[in-house]
C-alpha cells in the first residue's frame, strides 16, 4: 500500500492549483495538476470524456504520465503518454491512480480537484478509491473568488453550463453558483468522512500569514520537519501551462492576468453589496451569505 494520498478540494478559483504547487515543492510529496480522474469509473470511459470535452480536462493526466514515465511534457512525451493511457483502458481509474502513486512512492500523491466538488458521484468515487485519503477543503471569500472568476469568464468563448444562471437570457455566468454548489456539496460529503481526515482551510489564511497557515497544514499532513516552505511554487514541475497539445491542468487563477481594478475590487470583500458581475444589481443569494458566514467571512 502506498502512503495516504492528499486531495485538495475546492470551488473553482479558490487557490487549489497554487496550494498543490506549494505542496509539490515539499520533499515528501509529489503533486500533480488537476487530473479530473474521477469523471469516470474506467480509464477508457475517462479517455472518451477527455476526447469529447470542449475544455482541457484531459491535459493534466497526460502531462503527469508524460513527466513520470517518459521524462518530460513535450509533444513526443505526450504522444507516448497517450498510448500508455490507452493501453490501460480496461483498468478502473482507481487502479490507474494506484499505479501513479506507486511510481512516486514513498512520496505522497497530492491531487488538486475543482471538478469533483461540483459532482457528488465523483466525490463518492474518490472515497471509494482510498479510504485513508487526507482531504484539504480550501475555500475563498465568494466576493474575491467571484470578482476574479467573473473577470476571467467574460473573455471565454466556452463557459460551462455549471457556472451559469439560467433564470436570465442569455444565461449569465455567475461565480456564486459554483461557489455555493462546490462548498455545499463538499460539506455534505465530509459529513460522511472521519473528521481526522478533513481540514478546512481559508485561502486568505495563507495571504495573511503564510508561515503560520502552512505550519498548521503541515501538522495536519504530518509533514514532520518539512515545514520550511515557499509560497512561490515556480519550481514545481507543473507550475506553468503545458505545451500546445496539453496546456491545461492549472486553474487560471494562478496564470491568467486580470486588470488592477479587478484585483482591487476582489481584495475588498463584502457579502451584502450588489455583485459587480450581475447586471441586475442582485447581491449574493441568502444561502451563499449564510455559508460564507459559517466559514467566518464577513
Amino acid at each position: 500500500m502506498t502512503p495516504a494520498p492528499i486531495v485538495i478540494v475546492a470551488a473553482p478559483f479558490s487557490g487549489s492549483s497554487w496550494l498543490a504547487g506549494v505542496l509539490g515543492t515539499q520533499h515528501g510529496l509529489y503533486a500533480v495538476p488537476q487530473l479530473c480522474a474521477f469523471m469516470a469509473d474506467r480509464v477508457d470511459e475517462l479517455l472518451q470524456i477527455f476526447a469529447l470535452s470542449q475544455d482541457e480536462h484531459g491535459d493534466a493526466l497526460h502531462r503527469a504520465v508524460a513527466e513520470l514515465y517518459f521524462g518530460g511534457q513535450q509533444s513526443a512525451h505526450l504522444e507516448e503518454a497517450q498510448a500508455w493511457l490507452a493501453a490501460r483502458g480496461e483498468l478502473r481509474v482507481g487502479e490507474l491512480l494506484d499505479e501513479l502513486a506507486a511510481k512516486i512512492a514513498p512520496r505522497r500523491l497530492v491531487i488538486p480537484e475543482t471538478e469533483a466538488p461540483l459532482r457528488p458521484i465523483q466525490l463518492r468515487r474518490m472515497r471509494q478509491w482510498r479510504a485513508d485519503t487526507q482531504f484539504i477543503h480550501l475555500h475563498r471569500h465568494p466576493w474575491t473568488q467571484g470578482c476574479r472568476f467573473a473577470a476571467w469568464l467574460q473573455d471565454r468563448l466556452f463557459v460551462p453550463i455549471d457556472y451559469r444562471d439560467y433564470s436570465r437570457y442569455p444565461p449569465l455566468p455567475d461565480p456564486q453558483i459554483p461557489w455555493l454548489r462546490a462548498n455545499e456539496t463538499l460539506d455534505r460529503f465530509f459529513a460522511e468522512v472521519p473528521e481526522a481526515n478533513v481540514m478546512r482551510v481559508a485561502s486568505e489564511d495563507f495571504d495573511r500569514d503564510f508561515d503560520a497557515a502552512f505550519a498548521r497544514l503541515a501538522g495536519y499532513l504530518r509533514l514532520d520537519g518539512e515545514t520550511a516552505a515557499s509560497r512561490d511554487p515556480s519550481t514545481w514541475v507543473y507550475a506553468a501551462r503545458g505545451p500546445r497539445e496539453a496546456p491545461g491542468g492549472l486553474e487560471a487563477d494562478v496564470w491568467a492576468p486580470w486588470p488592477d481594478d479587478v484585483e482591487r475590487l476582489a481584495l475588498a470583500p463584502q457579502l451584502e453589496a450588489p455583485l459587480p458581475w450581475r447586471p441586475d444589481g442582485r447581491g449574493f443569494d441568502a444561502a451563499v451569505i449564510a455559508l460564507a458566514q459559517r466559514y467566518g467571512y464577513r
Partner: protein
Amino acid sequence: MIQNAGVPLVADDFRLTCRSGFGDGWNHYAHSMAAFRGKVYVGTTRGSMAGLKLTNPAPDLKPWPVESPDDLYAVDRRAEIWEYTPETADWRLAFRSPTLTGVNGRAGVPSYIGYRGMTVFQGRNDAAPCLYVATWSPHLAHSPDLLRSEDGVHFAPVQRPPFGPTVRAFRTVQPFGGRVHLSATATGTAKGFNQDFASEAVIYASDDVAGAPWTPANAEGFGNPDNTTVFEMAEFDGHLYAGTANPITGGELWKTRGGDLPYRWSKVFDRGAGRGLHNEVAGTLCEFKGALYVASGVINGGYHRAFRIGPAAAEIMRFWPDDSWDLIMGEARMTDQGLKYPLSGITPGFDNLFNGYVWRMQVHDGWLYASTMSWASLLPYLPTYAWPPDIAAVLRRWSPERLAETGGFSLWRTDDGIHWEPVTRDGFGNKFNWGGRTFASTPHGLFIGTANPFGPRLAMRRDGEWQYAFNPRGGCEIWLGSKQHHEPDAAA
C-alpha cells in the same frame, strides 16, 4: 424468489424477455405495464412512427424512418395487451382491440390504437382489485375508454369518461381518496393530431367507475387558460398532485387534499419552476424516500415544433411536503426560493441534450430508477445541415454517426436522489430503443418496456442510397432486471 434487498441493478442484470414488438414490429411502444394477479401485463401502442406523419406540424424527417403508407388506417393498429407468466417466462396475447365502422363509414377501424396507462385498484363495486387500462382511440373511432379486467383475460369498458369529442387518449388512472381520477392527454381532428396536448385540462373523478358519473375535480386549467393539459398525476403526502403542460409560460404543479368535488387546489409551482418554457410540462411524478420527484421538459421529445420551444433536455426536481424543493438534475437558476443548482451535479438530460424526456421513474428495492427518451437515433433523418453553426460544430465534434449508434435511451438509478449512476446509456445495446417507456416493480425483478418505433421496415442507407429493409431490432422490447433470474420451470 426475492432479490437481495437493496442491491442495485446493473446492465448485466437485465435480460430481454421479448423483442421486436412481441414479434410484430408495429408494436412500437410498450406504453403501459402493471403487475396483476401474479402476472405482468403490457399494453402496446401500434404504428406510432406511422402516426407521427399526421401530427401538426409533422417533424422534418427525410426519408421517413419507417416504411409506412400515407393511409394510416392501412396499418393494422389494433392495440394489444400481453401477459407475462414469470414461472414459465412466457408471453401470451391477452387482448386485442376490437374494430368498428369509423365515423366516416370506413370498416375495420380499431377502437384502440394504444394503451397509455394501467393501474390496479379496487373500485367501490369491485369484489377484488381489478386491472384498469387507459386507452387511445383513433379519430375515426369513439372517445377513449377505460377498460376493466377482473382476471386478465376479459377486458371490457366501464362508463366512458365525459371527454370532449376531440379528445383521443388519456394516460394516468390515479386512485386517491376513494375515487379514481383521469385526464385527457391527446387531441385529434381532421387537421391532424397532437399526442401530448388535449383540448381540455380537466381532471375527472368517480367513486364508482361502474356507474357513478365522472365529475370534474378542478376548474379548467386550474383557472389558467394557458394550461392546455393535465399531463400527469400522483398521490404524495396525503395529497393528489397534478402536473400541467403550458406552452405559454411553462408547466405548473398543483396539489389538493381532496374532499368534496370539485377539490380545492393550491399551486406548488408555475413558470416551469423558474425554467420557463424549457419546463413546458411537469410530466413524470414519483414518490421516493419522503419526497415527490418531478421530471419536466418539452413535449415532442424536447422540441415542441408548433410553439418552437427547445430543443431542451429534461430536468428532475424533488418536492417536499412543505412545497420547498431541490433541483436534482438540470440548470442552475435564481428562483422564488433562492438559488437552485443541481444537487446531483448533473445537467439536463443526464448530461445529454438528446434526452428530451425523463419518461418514467420507478422505485424498486430501495432505488429510484429513471428512464429517458433520446432522439439521437433520429439524427440520420434530420436536416442537421440547417442547424445553427454552433450546434452543427458540436455535432461534428461528437460525430452524428457515433451519436446515432449510441442513440438508445438511458436508465439511471440513485439511492438518495443525489448520487446517480447509469445502468445503460444505449437502450441496453439497441439504439432503436429510444425510450424506457414503462416500468413494473415486482418480486421477480424490475420490468422495463421500451418505446422503439423503428420497425418493421427501417430506412437504411446502403451504398449511398436510402432503402427500406426489415429491422430485426425494431419494435418494443421488454427487459427484466434481477440479481437472481428465475429459470423457467419445465414442469409448469
